[in-house]
């Protein structure tokens, strides 16, 4: 008897191991990508080579988002459909993304204890897989049905696919209970399929679906013309049509980026946080406190034998208003904008010009450090699938 149990366990473990290996081996090619907005980041998966499905709460209230490729460059995405009540959205990509389009499964036939795999970008880290089982195939929560799972779900997983053992999408990750352990929820795939089918049969450039009757709302209106539901204050639908005025700080940064030739939409990395590359140099802009807006670029790794001349160069007063510091062995170039300046109207152009100068100088200085002082490229400047180095601030901002 004990020998039989032992054998069964071994077989099951071997099967699970093989399944995981298949998914892990194809992780680079699977069509799951990270979505960036001005409020955070989330996950999404390709439903064809030009469209990504994600959660509505990942994109709201934005009509434009950024989607990251495996090489960490980003492309532009236009939000075409949102279903705020069911928490779904479809993003049209500015160019086709290579990647395996996952097959959509069925909600019928799901059973408790069935193995599930979740793909996504937890806390902004590179694409990761977690696994667990279906705790309840059809759990009622806030008047809607969800697939409940015990697989680990973290901020940043929202919008990613929940797969069955055959790698078919059976749900879309949406939320978890924060006061409980291992109680996560996915939107059943049948609802997802209906949403996608609806989108493919419709012509509207952008539409939000009415929470009550799922009629398309294509312009700002207080009541649904179909069922009469008051849309004001309901699921933030109005914000998709009449976006709130950006905070002056956000307006300043994005105007400065625009001036520097950097697409602000592609640079957004959560609230008051922007990350992008200029040439190979990573640059980030963030607010660390109520007083300062920091602009910083991680540059080269100090190396070679010219330390004294290198340090003298980095401390040279002629770099003002920019400065350099050492974070361990890595050189960083920094600039600070005081928040009080952002609210002064008259000289904003000059401040924006400084940000532009910083961005163009960063790449040049980085090259000079390598060429003249024998520094090496910093790990963060490598573009690769696994170059997911994030500082704490970025991780915090990445939480959706």
């Amino acid at each position, binding site marked *: 008897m004990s020998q039989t149990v032992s054998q069964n366990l071994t077989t099951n473990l071997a099967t699970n191991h093989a399944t995981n290996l298949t998914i892990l081996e194809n992780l680079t090619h699977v069509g799951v990508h990270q979505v960036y907005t001005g409020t955070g980041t989330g996950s999404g998966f390709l439903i064809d080579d030009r469209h990504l499905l994600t959660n509505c709460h990942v994109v709201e209230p934005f009509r434009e988002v950024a989607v990251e490729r495996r090489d960490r460059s980003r492309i532009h995405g236009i939000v075409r459909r949102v279903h705020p009540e069911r928490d779904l959205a479809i993003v049209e990509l500015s160019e086709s993304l290579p990647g395996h389009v996952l097959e959509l499964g069925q909600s019928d036939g799901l059973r408790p204890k069935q193995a599930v795999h979740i793909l996504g970008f937890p806390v902004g880290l590179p694409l990761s897989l977690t696994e667990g089982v279906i705790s309840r195939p059809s759990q009622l929560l806030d008047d809607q049905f969800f697939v409940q799972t015990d697989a680990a779900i973290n901020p940043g997983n929202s919008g990613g696919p929940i797969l069955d053992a055959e790698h078919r999408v059976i749900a879309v990750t949406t939320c978890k209970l924060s006061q409980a352990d291992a109680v996560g929820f996915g939107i059943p795939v049948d609802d997802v399929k209906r949403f996608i089918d609806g989108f493919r049969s419709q012509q509207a450039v952008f539409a939000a679906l009415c929470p009550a009757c799922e009629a398309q709302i294509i312009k700002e209106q207080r009541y649904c013309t179909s069922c009469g539901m008051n849309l004001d204050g309901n699921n933030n639908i109005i914000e998709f049509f009449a976006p709130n005025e950006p905070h002056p700080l956000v307006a300043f940064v994005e105007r400065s980026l625009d001036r520097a030739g950097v697409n602000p939409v592609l640079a957004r990395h959560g609230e008051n946080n922007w990350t992008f590359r200029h040439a190979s140099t990573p640059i980030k802009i963030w607010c660390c406190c109520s*007083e300062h807006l920091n602009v910083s670029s991680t540059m080269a790794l100090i190396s070679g034998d010219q330390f004294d001349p290198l340090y*003298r160069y980095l401390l040279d007063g002629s770099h003002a208003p920019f400065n350099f510091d050492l974070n361990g062995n890595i050189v960083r170039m920094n600039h600070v904008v005081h928040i009080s300046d952002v609210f002064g109207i008259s000289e904003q152009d000059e401040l924006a010009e400084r940000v532009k100068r910083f961005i163009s100088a960063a790449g040049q200085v980085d090259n000079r450090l390598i060429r003249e002082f024998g520094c090496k490229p910093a790990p963060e400047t490598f573009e690769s699938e696994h170059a997911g180095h994030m500082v704490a601030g970025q991780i915090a901002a990445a939480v959706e």
Partner: protein
Amino acid sequence: MAIAGLVFPSPLQKRPTFVKQDYARRDHAISLFEANAPLPAVVEALRYLNPSAGKVDLQKAPLHWAQGTAQIQIALEGEHLSVKSQLICIDSQVSNPAVLRYFLSKISNTGQLFQPRLTGDLLELAFSEKLSLLHPQKLIEVLQKLPGIADSHDAWLCEELGAALSARAPLKALSAAERKRALSFWTQHWNDMEALLLESRRRRSMQFLDSVGRLAINHVRYVLPLFGSLRHTLNQSADIFTDRDENPKLRENELARSIRTMQGASEAQLLSCLGHVKYAFSPWTPGSADVLRSAIGNVHHMHQSNEMRLSGRALEASVGLVANFLYLLAYFAWPAPVERALRAAIAAASNKTWQMSADILWKHAQAIGEKLGSSSDEESEDDASTNEQGEHA
């Protein structure tokens, strides 16, 4: 128990004058800036920080302020205003990577308006901004933070890394009587800390380790006008041994190392780090009822101290309470009634048994919390004029 009680001598350091911040003046500076009058805004911001500065005419001459051992120069340079404090001279013929790397990794920083800058052989902390972009808040922030950084690194850079000091404000030597008192305090204090560290190890209590660490640093800051390398070394260690988020073992080891280092300092080294200085504006934070309440009026803390003193743990209660009293005196400037009450409490607890000092401090803390914890802000204006005068320029 190797130690029967603590002695709390009166401070050798001149006590700060409590000056209520004139926020209307700061707001006026901002109004002037917003009305496109940047230079008058600068002058008003300077007067906000240093009301006794006298006539300020930057167009005629730069302003030189002594802030501790830092000499601050505020000057107009064309359309720009610069704030600088010279730190060290670096011989361009001699390689000195350690000192340069120290500046790049410890003093340069993101989120800091001023930075270390090298001009020729001169390394200085510098900030420069076009007048039209110089919001008064920026100038105030720079002047409040830059001198403290300059003042806390100078002599240490010289002793530890062999840098040559440049344009530093001199320390006024202590009198013979002051020197004697300082040396006596220093020896007694670090011997006491050694004994208390042993008690902390015996008890294996994180709370007690925390109290001993705070007592070690706060008592020195309150009593001695300490500068130079000893202060720098002590502050660096205190950042670790008072850090509640740090590993307790590491904190304990750092405290032990710090005690040994301080005990090992020679008489000459200590005296070279002691002296009186002038401050253009107070580096002490004005104390408030909130600060008072959080340090000695906290209900949970008072309840815990009471429990300890009534249950045979008078040592823990006493050290915890006195560390809090000394914290309030070491870091804040207080209106006269609060200052008197705080000093009276530690004077009364001086040279007493642990039980007696715990009882005295607990009762004083209760009385101060009740009587002054809600009214120190309101009384401050009347008391400022009668307060003991510090050594402000």
